[in-house]
């Protein structure tokens, strides 16, 4: 069988196996083992444990559990609510301050945790009830948080960017920086849409400004400042040339745990265990997928599938933008069904040669890919964030959450379009801070 046909067979089998309900990591191992056994013989299986272990034998991977601990220790406290309240008190003179505060809190929280569902849950728990109490339409309240939460994987530190960096051997520091401006762009688009739709729904009095005394404004600061300090510290350590992402993440994790224990009195061993349990659960799950995807990509290249696909695309005489469009559609569809980490790990080794051959920048592509994954997080049928919101506010129907989120999907598509027209939005900051990529 020629490698291209074989590639098609592998793709179909992978889809069938993954949709059977088997876990993603084991599914990848099953497909890889099956094909290796048939085409390379039983002896090739002897290599499996070595490849699996070797994939995990990487210091950069360590940043994943560390950033997860950092995020989940903050998420276990009232920090999300405090952040949101502080912003609300300070932004009270801005029209539509409440929804702006919520989205701003999502963006800031995203800068402390690398996870989208965590961001969604931390801000939404306080934000959604408050917005509804003040009369914001349910769709805006739920949709803005669902969308704001997706920023978790775009604004650094981002677990998916680390995974992309490892899968494609791209600098994680550069990837993190590349996410900053597009992240801010998305927040602005989200804010603009929320204000417009609240104004259009006739609730104009909601956009009126409220007032807080200076005392109220200042008394909340001590609870928020430590986190801002950590964000600045992490950024300084990483870009001041002090430490690698993994080292920075370790210090960040330790500091966040200490802050959670000291300021938020997370002393009870039971509560601490919940933080550790959730972090362990998430990092084991992600690292096992990474290891399994390593075996999967070994199988693809061992059977010459990766190389043949790249060659085949090279011979196709298509406009690079048509190609990019097709890649985007593929990513969107994959993102509808699979968690971002799995999509990145499976797609990156195949897509990256295609993307670079067509003359696109891998750092820029990482941002486009991430926004695609963000869309998947708020679209059915998987849409993890939709279910997180559904868990927080069970009385808002999934349909309302979904229709509320749809316009934000529009904002994301617009952002992808803007990134295609102005690639500098993603590439300027990393180049400015770290020098031009070679």
């Amino acid at each position, binding site marked *: 069988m020629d490698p291209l046909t074989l590639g098609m067979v592998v793709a179909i089998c992978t889809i069938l196996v993954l949709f*059977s309900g*088997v876990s993603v990591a*084991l599914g990848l*191992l099953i497909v890889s083992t099956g094909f290796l056994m048939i085409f390379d013989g039983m002896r090739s299986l002897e290599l499996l444990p070595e490849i699996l272990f070797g994939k995990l034998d990487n210091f950069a991977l360590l940043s994943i559990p560390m950033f997860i601990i950092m995020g989940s220790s903050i998420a276990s406290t009232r920090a999300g609510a405090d952040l949101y309240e502080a912003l609300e008190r300070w932004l009270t003179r801005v029209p539509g301050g409440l929804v702006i505060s919520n989205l701003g809190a999502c963006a800031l929280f995203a800068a402390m945790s690398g996870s989208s569902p965590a961001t969604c849950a931390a801000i939404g728990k306080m934000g959604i009830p408050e917005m509804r109490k003040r009369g914001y339409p349910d769709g805006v309240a739920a949709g803005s948080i669902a969308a704001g939460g997706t920023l978790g994987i775009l604004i650094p530190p981002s677990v998916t960017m680390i995974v992309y960096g490892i899968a494609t051997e791209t600098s994680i520091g550069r990837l993190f920086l590349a996410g900053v401006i597009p992240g801010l762009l998305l927040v602005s688009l989200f804010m603009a849409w929320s204000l417009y739709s609240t104004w259009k729904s006739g609730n104009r009095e909601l956009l009126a400004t409220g007032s807080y005394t200076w005392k109220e404004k200042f008394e909340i600061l001590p609870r928020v400042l430590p986190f801002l300090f950590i964000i600045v510290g992490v950024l300084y350590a990483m870009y001041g040339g002090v430490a690698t992402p993994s080292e920075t993440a370790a210090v960040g994790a*330790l500091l966040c745990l200490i802050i959670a224990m000291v300021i938020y009195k997370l002393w009870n061993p039971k509560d601490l265990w919940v933080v*550790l349990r959730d*972090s362990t659960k998430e990092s084991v799950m992600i690292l096992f997928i990474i290891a399994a995807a390593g075996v999967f990509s070994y199988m693809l290249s061992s059977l010459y599938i990766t190389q043949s696909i790249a060659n085949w695309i090279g011979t196709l005489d298509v406009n690079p933008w048509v190609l990019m469009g097709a890649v985007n559609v593929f990513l969107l569809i994959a993102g509808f069904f699979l968690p971002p980490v799995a999509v990145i790990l499976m797609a990156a080794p195949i897509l990256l040669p295609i993307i670079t051959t067509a003359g696109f920048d891998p750092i820029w592509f990482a941002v486009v890919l991430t926004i695609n994954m963000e869309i998947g997080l708020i679209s059915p049928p998987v849409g993890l964030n939709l279910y997180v919101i559904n868990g927080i506010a069970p009385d808002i129907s999934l349909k309302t959450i979904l229709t509320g989120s749809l316009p934000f999907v529009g904002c994301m598509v617009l952002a992808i379009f803007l990134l295609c027209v102005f690639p500098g939005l993603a590439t300027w900051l990393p180049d400015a801070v770290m020098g031009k990529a070679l």
Partner: protein
Amino acid sequence: MAGQSSAVASHTGNNPFLRIVAALSTVAGWFSAAMIVSAVAITCQMIFIRFVLNGSTIWQTEAVIYLAIASTLIGLPYVQRLRGHVNVDLIPISLGPKARYVMALFTLSLSIIMVAIMLWYGYDFWHLAWERNWKSDTVWGVRLWIPYSALPIGFALFLLQLIADLTAVILKIDKPFGLEDA
């Protein structure tokens, strides 16, 4: 939907086998969490020595990587018990009770075979490292059978947990895929 189900552990009922396996997986989970926490602590210690005391570090980077690997492999059974390994359960959700049951038997059996294969070759790999006294080619020169032992231990416990899950579904103690009836 896919994604992590909300940390609902699999049911064990009063079945002694299921309870023993659940206890083993939980202990493995504690070890896994402890190893991640030690990795954080050692990394911080390494940064302190390097940047504050201007000293050099020998064993830390390697130790931390092996701790993270061991934490992942030994954590596998615990995450399986918490149903934390993400899957796409779109089709299982849309199936009727009978078909869903058959599908669960099928996917669990497939997983068991896969993990058994990994255990078999993982043990082989570990045994080779032990027999030939392989050492890592760093200054520290750690004997590799120590970190490699996470492969057979992790996959053995993972295999036990998967067999327990299959048993629980067959004995109707647990629901297929942990899904409530529609």
